[in-house]
């Protein structure tokens, strides 16, 4: 698999992890404005990264998160869990 694709997936994982950790922090610190700003910035970044990845390489999830080109892209190899890093 192309290094560029793997790098992109890695970056998505990193940003998504930052989002979920800030999610947990904000659950107990709902008025922390700096944390909220970072959460919003990372969330925005995450959505853009995913959109960019899916345009180039196909869907990350099977339904509900993004539209599919024709023909239906989800059944194309590799499945997300078959990707080797």
């Amino acid at each position, binding site marked *: 698999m192309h290094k560029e694709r793997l790098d992109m997936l890695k970056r998505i994982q*990193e940003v998504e992890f930052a989002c979920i*950790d800030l999610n947990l*922090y904000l659950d107990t*610190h709902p008025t*922390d404005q*700096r944390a909220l700003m970072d959460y919003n910035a990372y969330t925005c970044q995450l959505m853009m990264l995913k959109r960019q990845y899916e345009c180039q390489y196909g869907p990350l999830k099977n339904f509900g998160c993004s539209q599919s080109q024709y023909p239906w892209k989800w059944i194309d190899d590799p499945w997300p869990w078959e990707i080797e890093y």
Partner: protein
Amino acid sequence: MKEYECIHDNGYMQQNLEMLRYMLAKAYVPYQMYNMKYPLDKALMAGTLFPELVKPWPPYYYEDVVKK
């Protein structure tokens, strides 16, 4: 020393209470503050975005902590 109304009227209990006054431990949890964060690639490796949650406290497990 606070006064107690003993259910069983004996000096033994009063003596025990007096001892407990000095022996009881108190637990506390410091309130987490968002002052620093790891670079995102380090955060994924460390399993947390927050350096203050990584043992040993301090110095932190990863040194290149980003000051906000």
